[in-house]
């Protein structure tokens, strides 16, 4: 592909061009100076672009071609569940009766929307084995914080103000400790053992009467199922702590195991992962939270209830932690997730999990001869390999990631888990075919060979992208965060 300095929209702007069509002002007008105090009338125009409609379409079409999505090619970004985003979901979310309704309309005029939300909650309860669900949180991290706030409210309602610590494994995603901080907790790290699982002895050592919760994802971020989950639940429950489930990895267990049955008290889900909400280039997501009975009183308000086949919001929740978001959550994403669940049904969702796990194990076994496999056992929906063998040859995981770009693949996750050196977290998902997996495997094998025979080609990658490897240090040292006209 040609390398170029692709223009910013501001650089193709030309005074006099317009790209809009506003309705006319058909009411008698008053001088603007008489409607607003002088100080409050803007004197400097905002430097927004002046372009025609075709300019805009060409600009964004060109930008889209400089972007890789699931529809463009394989995207095995571990922990993010980059599965196919069904098109019917997009159509349903755009129905005027879903897309163009106002959150403060009279409840009688939005019964269809409330019914959908209610039925989605019922489905999520069943899938997770929890007693109640709130759809309010906007994404996974928001759900984590909400869930931890619920746990805190629960402890405080019991007079347990000394429960100030949340235990989190060293393999956890960064949002877990960050959410604990925002919810006002102190984070205690528990180590992983040589099998990649939570070290039970270390857990016993750090757990105590000040433990508010243990926050886990199961399977964990190494893609391994925490086999001792029941014992861990007992250890935490014995000191009055709660068990929190990060649902980022639910794709691994649908119809096979339920967080509620494993002893988890609170769970958040990432509807933009397991349930096909499109990732949107970074969002929007949706992060519903499910809870066991004793935490229900603390759920964010309002709570959606059904009475005599009518749906309405209950605001009378004296023990609620309050609102975590204006209105009722990312409804548009919830509509997509609901459409997906109804497309798959109970057998389909179980099949999703089985195929995701087969795909992951197949890839893991195929790559094991060429890369280090730190934990050699069946994985669930994803697995972690290490590039430490290649590192000895001077090829870093980052180089391997960049080299994959030359073959049209999105690389795996490489910024975590932190407990594996030079980690590559690979999550193929169930929507990818064996042919795609094989092509990726072959490429990974080729890169491993290149690392031995011709490391420069890997170290200097990518070679075929619209820009070469970008200088991130420079970007951070002297940040340029907006366009400034010269």
């Amino acid at each position: 592909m040609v390398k170029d300095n692709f223009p910013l929209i501001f650089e193709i702007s030309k005074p006099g061009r317009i790209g809009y069509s506003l309705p006319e002002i058909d009411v008698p007008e008053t001088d603007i100076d008489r409607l607003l105090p002088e100080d409050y009338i803007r004197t400097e125009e905002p430097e927004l672009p002046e372009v025609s409609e075709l300019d805009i379409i060409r600009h964004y079409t060109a930008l889209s071609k400089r972007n890789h999505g699931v529809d463009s090619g394989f995207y095995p970004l571990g922990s993010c569940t980059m599965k196919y985003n069904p098109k019917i979901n997009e159509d349903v979310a755009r129905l005027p009766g879903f897309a163009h309704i106002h959150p403060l309309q009279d409840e009688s005029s939005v019964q269809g929307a409330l019914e959908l939300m209610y039925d989605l909650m019922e489905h999520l309860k069943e899938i997770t084995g929890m007693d109640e669900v709130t759809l309010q949180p906007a994404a996974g991290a928001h759900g984590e914080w909400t869930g931890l706030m619920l746990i805190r409210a629960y402890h405080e309602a019991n007079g347990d103000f000394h429960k100030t610590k949340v235990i989190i494994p060293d393999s956890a995603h960064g949002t877990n400790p960050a959410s604990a901080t925002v919810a006002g907790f102190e984070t205690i790290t528990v180590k992983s053992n040589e099998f990649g699982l939570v070290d039970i002895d270390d857990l016993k050592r750090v757990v105590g009467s000040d433990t508010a919760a243990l926050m886990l994802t199961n399977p964990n971020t190494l893609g391994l199922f925490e086999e001792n989950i029941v014992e861990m639940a007992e250890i935490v429950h014995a000191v009055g702590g709660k068990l929190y489930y990060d649902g980022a990895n639910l794709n691994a267990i649908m119809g096979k195991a339920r967080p509620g049955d494993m002893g988890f008290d609170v769970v958040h889900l990432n509807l933009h992962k397991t349930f096909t909400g499109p990732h949107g280039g970074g969002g929007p997501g949706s992060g519903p939270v499910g809870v066991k009975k004793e935490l229900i009183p603390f759920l964010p308000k309002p709570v959606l209830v059904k009475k005599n086949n009518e749906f309405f919001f209950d605001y009378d929740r004296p023990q609620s932690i309050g609102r975590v978001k204006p209105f009722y959550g990312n409804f548009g994403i919830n509509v997509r997730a609901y459409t997906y669940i109804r497309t798959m049904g109970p057998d389909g969702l179980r099949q999703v999990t089985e195929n995701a796990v087969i795909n992951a194990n197949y890839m893991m076994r195929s790559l094991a001869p060429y890369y280090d496999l730190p934990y050699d056992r069946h994985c669930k929906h994803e697995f972690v390999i290490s590039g430490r063998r290649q590192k000895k040859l001077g090829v870093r995981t980052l180089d391997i990631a960049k080299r994959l770009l030359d073959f049209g693949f999105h690389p795996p996750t490489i910024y975590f888990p932190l407990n594996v050196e030079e980690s590559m977290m690979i999550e193929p998902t169930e929507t990818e075919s064996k042919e795609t997996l094989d092509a990726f495997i072959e490429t990974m094998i080729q890169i491993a060979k290149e690392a031995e025979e011709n490391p420069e080609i890997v170290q200097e990658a990518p070679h075929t992208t619209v820009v070469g490897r970008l200088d991130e240090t420079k970007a951070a040292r002297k940040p340029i965060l907006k366009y400034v006209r010269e």
Partner: protein
Amino acid sequence: MAFRYLPMTEQDKADMLAKIGVETVDELFSDIPENVRYQGRLRLKEAKSEPALYKELSDLAAKNVNVKNFTSFLGAGVYDHYIPSIVDHVISRSEFYTAYTPYQPEISQGELQAIFEFQTMICELTGMDVANSSMYDGGTALAEAAMLATGQTKRRTILISEAIHPEYKEVVKTYAKGQKLQVEEVPLNNGVTDIESLKNQLTDDVACVLVQYPNFFGRIESLREIEPVVHGNHSLFIVSANPVALGILTPPGKFGADIVTGDAQPFGIPQSFGGPHCGFFAVSKKFMRKIPGRLVGQTTDENGNRGFVLTLQAREQHIRREKATSNICSNQALNALAASVTMTALGKKGIREMAIGNIQKANYAKNVFKQNGFEIVYDGPSFNEFVVKLDKPVEGLTSYLLQSGVIGGYDLGKVDPKYAGQMLVCVTEIRTKEEIDTFVEKVRAYHHG
């Protein structure tokens, strides 16, 4: 049963299991202890074919009154504006909507550049130095601004104007609870934040003062008068702004705001029953390294070509973990793109024209209400919202209007019983004179009927 999203054939499965070295799929799940293995069949609704499901969900959607078929005068934080047709075409390009966070910049230049342009446009509108790539919504953005301020000043009280959106206020209070912070409301005087009360409430424990511009009741807050009072106390000045209004109003940055947040929903984002919308977060330069969420920065590649990357990531949770400036990870990128496309379409001229359309039409509606004998509560300069006083419960009016194809204003009695009988009316640029006249006529008929 076969599913169209699952390409694995029986043969594939057999080959793959053989490669793995197991006989059955169940062996791959043998690490799930027997006592927690789910043995049943989930009690979910059965799978449906594409046409059958589409029909069912279309029928469900049709049960809702929507603002395309009805004439809406409802705002209160979510607005019915012009959405250029091109917006949905752009965000429907699957290279955008099926991508994730641009962790690999070389194959994500499209998204990164679009966000860089978004950051630029938000800075232009708000008059601030730095804007991030988006927050969940205006409410959580405001709450995060308050958190930034308390962290920065090491003070523990947040002063929040009573005229901030009530649901935003609730969100701020929930976030504050997490950090054991105090939130105190500043009362109003004729619908705007009361400066005298504010002065009395400013102690040396006040981290920040939060106001909304235009405020929840549609009034224009006196940022010029509030700013010196706030900064005189070494507190941070945080403004939650409606970005469309900034097409005509002096930007908060000009008045010395430290942080400007808000929701870009008015820029091409469907109301979607309250979400997903698009929070924005802009700061003055000195808070650049304190800003929550993702930032896109400009850099060069090895050949000196311009390119864009996620930057200043040392603030973020995946690096800093429990010491991060925020826990936000996924944001609202696709809606930021929608807002960018809309801001681009409007451009320098259109944004002003749109803002003026709102003011003119709302002002006309206000006058027609007055001419018909209604009291406008807190009369004075406003943007596209104002409060009408009724002698009858607003609830009855809402139902009455719905019967004739109109979504009425917001019943302020739901916010606080002290506002019973008051209706917050929103008139945007897309309402016509005829719709406004008919609306007032219907309100009058109900009122006198």
